[in-house]
């Protein structure tokens, strides 16, 4: 396809700049996002064996609820009955004590209740590991340790740069599309090879990237978008938010067993997982069922939901119920589902995992190319030494991605080694210590030396995941399929070991003026 050369040249420059500004943040977002595809299994993998007595049967659940509400009246405002019990959902009943802002973002202290063999109430605070949630937030905030309301607009700006990068990258590639598309020139010219890899990855995952960019813009700015619409077009935001007020627990409600039967009869194919009891307007009982249905996309990352009449068990609100939505709701849900990859079961989750890793790699190769072209430009201008800016960017290109990989691996491994004492804050501290340490190491040692060293470090960190499993023992595996977590970590560790070897070789034998070159016998810079 023929395009004016000035247009292509302009977009090439724009592509380089928006790419280098957003590339490292996008790497963290995509790597953490790929890991988040398995948030639920990771949470089970990382959660210690429950300390409570095993959950009472669903038939005995009304007894548990009555005892828990008698001892903890504040739980009547809202509690959950878990239909699926595993190490991530270790109790039949749970509730959260949180107020206002905290509750909006899923904060607060979570309580879990069970019945001891003699029928007495047991309540524990805290339980399942929060490491998977930490990685999810890291993904949402493109790796920034700021409060939500500061990090989200920055993420939105990155997402806008990312759309510009996609459009400009496509414009640059179009003229040579036919000749370059299936050419993967692996050979002497390493830059050519990286460019080919970058182009192939970018073009073939373009639909995935367009989805991610446009949905991320909405996730960042939906409050502003709604606010602007409200300001200009009037109207109220919601039909009135459900008021939370303390009142007696719902009476005449069907029992959980009956409710599950009624839901299954009305929605075959839908697997109910959680019953969420709350209080709607005027203290009236409200009830919601959360669950999954692999045949449909879902509104939340891991579940869809429906409003239930607690007295009859009839499904009353279907806006977010997989398979029962009207056209508009289903369309909106499809936007969320396309971002979350929560349709079609495990095949789609693995595909999204691989696409996410490929995306992270795309940004990494983009950064490599930028550093490499800077070197060529500077050479032409007569500089023999790399400039400071190129050196710093080269170091960051190595330190940030590898720091992110190592940080996530080590904070995951820590979940098993620290057990019940591993809090959200501790996981965050471990991640950022490793991440900042790796970045500082790269800056002080330079891209060439730290490239090989940090890749080795990332490989060893990855290896810490299966090692922590071995140390913690089989009690932590509440299902055998969780071994897949350790297997995937082993495979990634092996790839990182290979990469470390190649990086070392290149530092010794590659072109001497490259940022990747480090030769012991070379002349010392004056």
């Amino acid at each position: 396809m023929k395009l004016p050369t000035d247009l292509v040249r302009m977009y090439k420059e724009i592509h380089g700049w928006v790419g280098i500004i957003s590339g490292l943040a996008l790497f963290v977002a995509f790597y953490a996002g790929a890991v988040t595809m398995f948030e639920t299994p990771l949470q089970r993998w990382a959660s210690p064996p429950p300390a409570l007595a095993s959950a009472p049967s669903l038939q005995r659940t009304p007894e548990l609820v009555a005892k828990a509400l008698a001892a903890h009246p504040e739980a009547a405002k809202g509690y959950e009955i878990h239909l699926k019990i595993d190490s991530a959902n270790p109790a039949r009943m749970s509730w959260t004590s949180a107020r206002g802002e905290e509750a909006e973002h899923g904060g607060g202290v979570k309580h879990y209740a069970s019945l001891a063999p003699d029928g007495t109430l047991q309540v524990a605070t805290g339980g399942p590991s929060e490491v998977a949630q930490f990685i999810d937030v890291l993904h949402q905030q493109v790796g920034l340790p700021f409060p939500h309301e500061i990090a989200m607009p920055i993420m939105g700006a990155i997402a806008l740069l990312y759309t510009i990068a996609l459009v400009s990258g496509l414009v640059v590639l179009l003229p040579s599309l036919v000749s370059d598309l299936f050419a993967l020139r692996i050979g002497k010219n390493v830059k050519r090879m990286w460019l080919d890899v970058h182009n192939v990855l970018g073009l073939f995952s373009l639909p995935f990237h367009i989805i991610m960019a446009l949905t991320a813009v909405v996730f960042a700015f939906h409050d502003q978008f709604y606010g602007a619409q409200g300001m200009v077009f009037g109207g109220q935001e919601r039909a009135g938010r459900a008021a939370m007020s303390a009142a007696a627990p719902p009476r005449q409600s069907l029992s959980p067993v009956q409710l599950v039967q009624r839901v299954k009869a009305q929605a075959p194919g839908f697997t109910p997982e959680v019953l969420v009891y709350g209080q709607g307007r005027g203290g009236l009982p409200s009830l919601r069922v959360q669950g999954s249905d692999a045949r449909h996309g879902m509104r939340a990352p891991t579940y869809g939901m429906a409003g239930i009449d607690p007295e009859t068990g009839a499904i009353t609100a279907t806006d977010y119920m997989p398979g029962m939505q009207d056209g508009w709701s289903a369309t909106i849900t499809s936007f969320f589902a396309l971002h979350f990859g929560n349709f079609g079961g495990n095949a789609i989750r693995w595909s999204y995992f691989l696409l996410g890793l490929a995306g992270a790699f795309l940004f990494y190769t983009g950064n490599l190319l930028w550093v490499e072209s800077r070197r060529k430009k500077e050479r032409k201008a007569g500089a023999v030494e790399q400039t400071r800016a190129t050196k710093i960017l080269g170091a960051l290109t190595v330190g940030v991605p590898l720091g992110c990989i190592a940080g996530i691996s080590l904070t995951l491994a820590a979940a098993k080694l620290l057990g019940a004492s591993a809090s959200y804050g501790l996981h965050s501290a471990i991640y950022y210590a490793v991440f900042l340490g790796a970045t500082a190491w790269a800056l002080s040692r330079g891209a060439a030396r730290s490239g090989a060293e940090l890749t080795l470090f990332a490989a060893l960190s990855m290896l810490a995941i299966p090692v922590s499993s071995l140390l913690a023992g089989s009690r932590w595996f509440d299902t055998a399929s969780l071994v897949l977590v350790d297997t995937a970590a082993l495979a990634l560790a092996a790839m990182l070991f290979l990469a470390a070897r190649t990086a070392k070789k290149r530092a010794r034998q590659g072109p001497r003026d490259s940022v990747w070159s480090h030769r012991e016998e070379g002349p010392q810079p004056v």
Partner: protein
Amino acid sequence: MNKPLSSKDWFGKSSAGLILGFTLALGAAGLFQRLAGVGDTFFSTKGQFAMWLMSPVWAMTLSFCFMFRSTARAWCWLAVANLAIWAIVLLPGGSHP
């Protein structure tokens, strides 16, 4: 007039894309609300769709605004596009669809 395109005037063009692109996106959302008959609560599913519409319009304006020959042209043409869409949204029947 056929001065070659260049990335030198990126700031003027991209600020036009950022600001007028946003108002254009808001206009597109308003247009959709009018056509689809979104009522009082814009958090209805159609209202949500109108909000989602803003993301592609804004992001694409920002991505393609560099193709204008100059900063002045970017601001002019995007202003004209804004006028056109807002005229349809606001003029007949007031701002409340």
